[in-house]
């Protein structure tokens, strides 16, 4: 196991290198140089901010020197300072926004797993039944619905017509005056729609995946063997097939992280949630280059770590992986 983890950690080195190269290239995409042409057109950029950008990225130096300096800052998590008027270090801004985004995404991942896996497995076990066919239709519709549209529709229905749920922010204006129980209720009400919607986006894919995965498993020889030795159908499905069906889901979990982080931009700007996505959106709108760069790198690093965790946990539960 230790060798496997070590091998995986070494495998991350070229990835890290690639991530920094691609991120570094993005900032040089701007026509001319980001400090000359672009900023002249950008009234939000003061002369002083331009000076800082020039200095931090050393844009007057040759490219490889620039890259070297940038990476040198990066390893100490020095991502420069925000161009916004508060002029705070980028890493601090990201740190304070990270928890709420992770919290929402973990909740919605949990929800996805709780709904999608049973859905997929049941429709595989009862293939071509009414249940299976209606799940297939649901999955098809789920794939095609733009989640931000669904968000607007739910806001109209539950937030405005029925007036059951708040439609923006994390807490009500009178939050401070509520009792502890009501504060909790208030928080939950604010989070309900964002979490449900963010889960909805992944639901179709996950249930589809667990269905086809389960279909493959119940055709395996060891399932036939289990049946042949006279086990009851429920023992075959819930003891022998189910365990194997759960395994690959772990990998898909890891792979879905970038989509979840990316999706948070849309949800957080619709529901006015002060998380990583909203921070990124504001940075893009305000042309806050160092914040954009910082979030891009952090987003990629989080994805890489997520994948690593998924791989390791997969290897922990499935010994076949370690040997390969």
């Amino acid at each position, binding site marked *: 196991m230790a060798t496997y983890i070590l091998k995986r950690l070494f495998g991350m080195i070229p990835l890290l290198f*690639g991530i920094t190269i691609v991120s570094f290239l993005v900032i040089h995409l701007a*026509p001319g140089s980001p400090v000359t042409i672009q900023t002249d057109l950008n009234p939000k950029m003061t002369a002083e901010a331009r000076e800082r950008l020039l200095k931090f990225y050393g844009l007057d130096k040759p490219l490889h020197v620039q890259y070297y300096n940038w990476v040198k800052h990066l390893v100490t998590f020095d991502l420069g300072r925000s161009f916004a008027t508060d002029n705070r270090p980028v890493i601090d801004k990201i740190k304070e926004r990270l928890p709420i985004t992770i919290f929402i995404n973990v909740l919605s991942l949990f929800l996805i797993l709780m709904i999608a896996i049973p859905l997929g497995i049941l429709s595989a076990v009862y293939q071509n039944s009414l249940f299976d066919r209606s799940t297939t239709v649901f999955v098809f519709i789920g794939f095609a619905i*733009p989640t*931000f549209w669904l968000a607007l529709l739910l806001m109209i229905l539950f937030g405005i017509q029925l007036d059951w749920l708040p439609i923006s922010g994390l807490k009500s204006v009178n939050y401070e005056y509520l009792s502890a129980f009501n504060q909790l209720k208030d928080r939950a009400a604010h989070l309900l729609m964002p979490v449900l919607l963010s889960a909805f986006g992944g639901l179709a894919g996950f249930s589809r995946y667990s269905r086809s995965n389960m279909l493959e498993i119940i055709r395996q020889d060891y399932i036939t063997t289990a049946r042949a030795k006279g086990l009851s159908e429920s023992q075959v499905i819930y003891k022998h097939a189910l365990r194997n069906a759960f395994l690959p889901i772990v990998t898909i979990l890891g792979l879905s992280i970038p*989509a979840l982080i990316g999706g948070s931009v849309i949800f957080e700007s619709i529901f006015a949630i002060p998380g990583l996505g909203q921070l*990124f959106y504001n940075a893009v709108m305000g042309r806050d280059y160092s914040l*954009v760069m910082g*979030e891009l790198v952090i987003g990629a690093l989080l*994805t890489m770590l997520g994948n690593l965790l998924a791989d390791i946990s997969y290897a922990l539960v499935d010994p076949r992986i370690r040997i390969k």
Partner: protein
Amino acid sequence: MKPETIKNGAPETPWRLFWKGFKKNKLAVSGTIIIAGLFIIAIFAPVIAPYDQDAIMVKEILQPPSQKHLMGTDELGRDVLTRIMWGSRVSLLVGFLAVGISVAIGVLLGSLAGYYGRLVDAIIMRFVDVMLCFPTFFLILAVIAFWEPSIWKIMLVIGLTSWMGVARLVRAEFLSLKERDFFQAARALGGKDLRIIFRHILPNSLAPVLVSATLGVAGAILTEAALSFLGIGIQPPDPSWGNMLTAGKDNIEIAWWLSFFPGFAIFITVMGYNMLGEGIRDAIDPRLR
């Protein structure tokens, strides 16, 4: 083989087989009908749209759907149905060109990796892994932050950030086709690399690429809509379904129709492409025949 195919004597070419499966597939046919309808709307938008796309009717601001305005009017008094018809042009254009770019890159890199193997393969596949680490939406937003958004740049950026799936697919096809006899034969006859790639292997790996491209169009349309919705895509006053939804959000408390109809247009379009893609997949899958 069924008797009637022998009777009419036509040779069973792969395309003929595909067409037979395609015609019988309800998903594929319905998807085709939806997409054909959208194309007609997009091409003839200037003729069939009931109003001028920028016509501002000051006295008819935020009207709910009625006989005069089937889908209501927006905050400037423009006809929503008209703007949805014009908006279909953006969606179709972005969908096709973005996927064209991503398929071109994916096929090129996937072929190189699959054909040459070893170091070329290792470098290209590591690059794919790196690109997959970036939350695509972050990457697109970051690039758009440095460039000023326009429809062409949006297509380019979506294309440049969505080729990884196709590359992996083509590489896998190459790896399996390389084991087959016809490949060895082409090699033994002294075929040049380029000729073998383009004449012998690529045509054999086109089917899964076609499926993935069709589904990719749906994905690109969704991405463009999301970008425009956030105000970083197609800029008003040019109508796109995404930026019409922004108006819907701004007037969410008073005008549900501004949110409902443009989103429904996106939904139907994406559904059409997904149905077509799944239908093609069923039609080309020999195991289902």
